[in-house]
C-alpha cells in the first residue's frame, strides 16, 4: 500500500503532507537564514518567557533577556495582583531600568516601584511614570502620562506567560496555541512548586538543540547508560496541532533500577523512570490510562518543549544568541519534599536528570561542527523523527511569509 509498511511508517501515513525526503541543512548554518528567522519567527511568534508563580507577590519581578530580538523584558506583579510586561528601558534616555545578572533576573521592588539608577525616574508596576526629579525643567514635549514604560504584548495560558514582540500580534495566544493549548489544559502545573534550572551556552544553531530533544529515537543509545531499559524507544499517539506537536513516551518493559534508584523511587515521585499514577493528568493526556505511560512531550513552536507526567513536569527552551550560538535552559519541576528522606530522593532524581541532559547537550556542538563541515548537504529523518520534519515544515512556512 503506497510503498509504506504500516508499523514502520505510521506517522508518514498519518501526516503525508510532511513528506519523507531528506532535509537540507541550510537553515542550521546560514547567518542569512538566521536573520530571516529573527524577523519572521521570533518577532512574530508567541514566546514563552516565564510563569505567573515566578512572581507571586506585589513588587516581584522577573527580567528576561531575549537576545534574539535585542530585548530585555520586565514581568512584574502589581499591587492589584495583575501581571504586567514591559521593555526594560527607561523612557528618559533608554537606560536599563533593572540591571540583569544573567538571562533571568529575579527580584522584589520595594513598594512595587521601579526607580532608574541613572536619574531617578520612578515607575509603578503597571509601567506608569510616577516620579521625575526636576520635572519642571523638561520641555513641552514631555508628558508624564505618555512617558510610561513601553508595554510588551503578553498573554497567560495555564500559568505560562508568553510575549509577542510584533507591533500587533498576528493572533491571540489562544488562537496561536489552538488545539495544543487545549491538549495540556488542566494539568496542575502550579502544584509542582520545586524547580531546578540548568542552563548552558552552546556553540550550535538553536534548532540543533531543539532537534536533539524532540525525538525518542536516541534514548536507547545516547542514554543507554543513564536510563538502562527505562523507556520504550518509540513514540506513541503523535498528534500535530498546526504549528505545534505532541506525543507520548512509554516506559520500557523491563527497567533496571540500581539499588540507589530503587530506594529513591520508593520515597518520592521525582524520577521519570519510575511508574506513575495518573491522578493529576487531564483526560486527554494518556487517555487510556496505560500503566506504561512515561510522559507526554509537547512542542510549542518555535523554541519550547513542555513535558508532563504524574508529579513531574519539565521544559526545554532554546534561545538563539547567533546563528551558531544558543542558550539552552532545562527546568524540572516536582513537588516540594515533605521529609528529609524525600529531599534526598528528589536530589537523586535531579542528579540523574542532570546527567541525562549532559548527555543530550554533549551532542549539540559536535553536530554543529559536522553540519558546518560541508560533508553532508542534507539530513535523514526516520518516522519517529516526525517532530523534526514538522518543525522544518513550519519554519519554512514562517520564513517564506512576509
Amino acid at each position: 500500500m503506497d510503498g509504506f509498511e504500516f508499523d514502520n511508517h505510521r506517522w508518514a501515513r498519518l501526516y503525508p503532507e510532511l513528506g519523507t525526503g531528506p532535509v537540507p541543512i541550510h537553515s542550521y548554518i546560514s547567518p542569512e537564514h538566521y536573520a530571516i528567522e529573527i524577523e519572521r519567527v521570533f518577532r512574530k511568534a508567541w514566546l514563552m518567557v516565564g510563569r505567573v508563580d515566578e512572581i507571586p507577590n506585589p513588587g516581584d519581578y522577573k527580567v528576561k533577556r531575549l537576545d534574539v530580538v535585542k530585548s530585555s523584558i520586565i514581568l512584574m506583579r502589581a499591587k492589584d495582583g495583575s501581571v504586567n510586561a514591559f521593555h526594560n528601558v527607561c523612557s528618559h534616555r533608554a537606560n536599563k531600568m533593572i540591571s540583569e545578572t544573567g538571562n533571568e533576573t529575579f527580584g522584589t521592588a520595594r513598594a512595587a516601584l521601579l526607580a532608574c539608577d541613572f536619574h531617578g525616574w520612578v515607575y509603578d508596576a503597571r509601567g506608569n511614570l510616577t516620579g521625575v526629579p526636576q520635572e519642571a525643567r523638561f520641555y513641552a514635549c514631555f508628558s508624564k502620562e505618555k512617558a510610561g514604560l513601553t508595554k510588551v504584548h503578553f498573554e497567560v495560558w495555564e500559568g505560562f506567560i508568553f510575549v509577542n514582540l510584533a507591533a500587533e500580534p498576528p493572533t491571540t495566544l489562544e488562537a496561536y496555541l489552538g488545539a495544543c493549548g487545549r491538549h495540556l489544559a488542566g494539568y496542575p502545573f502550579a502544584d509542582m512548586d520545586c524547580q531546578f534550572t540548568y542552563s548552558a551556552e552552546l556553540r550550535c544553531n538553536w534548532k540543533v538543540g531543539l532537534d536533539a530533544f524532540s525525538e525518542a529515537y536516541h534514548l536507547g543509545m545516547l542514554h543507554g547508560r543513564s536510563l538502562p531499559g527505562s523507556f520504550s524507544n518509540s513514540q506513541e499517539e503523535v498528534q500535530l496541532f498546526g504549528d505545534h506537536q505532541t506525543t507520548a513516551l512509554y516506559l520500557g518493559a523491563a527497567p533496571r533500577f540500581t539499588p540507589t534508584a530503587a530506594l529513591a523511587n520508593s520515597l518520592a515521585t521525582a524520577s521519570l523512570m519510575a511508574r506513575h499514577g495518573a491522578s493529576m493528568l487531564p483526560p486527554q493526556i494518556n487517555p487510556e490510562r496505560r500503566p506504561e505511560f512515561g510522559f507526554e512531550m509537547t512542542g510549542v513552536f518555535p523554541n519550547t518543549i513542555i513535558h508532563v507526567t504524574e508529579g513531574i513536569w519539565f521544559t526545554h527552551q532554546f534561545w538563539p544568541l547567533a546563528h551558531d550560538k544558543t542558550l539552552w535552559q532545562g527546568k524540572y519541576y516536582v513537588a516540594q519534599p515533605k521529609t528529609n528522606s524525600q529531599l534526598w530522593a528528589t536530589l537523586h532524581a535531579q542528579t540523574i536528570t542532570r546527567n541525562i541532559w549532559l548527555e543530550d547537550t554533549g551532542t549539540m556542538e559536535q553536530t554543529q561542527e559536522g553540519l558546518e563541515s560541508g560533508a553532508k548537504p542534507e539530513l535523514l529523518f526516520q518516522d519517529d523523527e516526525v517532530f523534526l520534519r514538522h518543525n522544518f515544515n513550519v519554519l519554512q512556512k514562517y520564513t517564506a511569509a512576509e
Partner: protein
Amino acid sequence: MAGLLPENYQDLEPFAADWCLDTQDERQRKRRASTAEQLRSFYAAISPRISEILEEVDRFPIGQIPPSHRPLFSLALSLTEVAPNVELYAGSPAVPHAFEESRMKARHGDEKNWAGHLSRPNAVVVASS
C-alpha cells in the same frame, strides 16, 4: 578530636572531611575530582548504611536538621551524586559521552540542602534599591 558525624556513625568518619558537602555544586566538583577508586570506596561504605541514615535524619522535620546531624545528611546527599557513576558508569568520575560539566550551570547549585525546601520558582530574590 571530635568527629563531624553523630555517635553511631563513627565508622563513616574517614569519609566525612571530604564528602560532608552542603551544596550540589560542591558535591559535583568533588565527584569530578575523585578517582574511580575513591568513588567506589565511598559508595561501598555509605550505600549499605543509607536507609539507616535516612531514618535517622527523618527524626527531624524537613528544614530543621540540627547542626549535629547536618554533616550526616550532607554525606547521604553525596551518595546521590556518586551513585550513578559507580552503578551506571563503571566508576568513571565523569559522566561519559557528555557535555563539559563545568559549562552547565545549576541555578540552585549553591543552596545548602539541609536547609530544607528546595528551589522555588522565584528562588533568587534580591531587594531592589
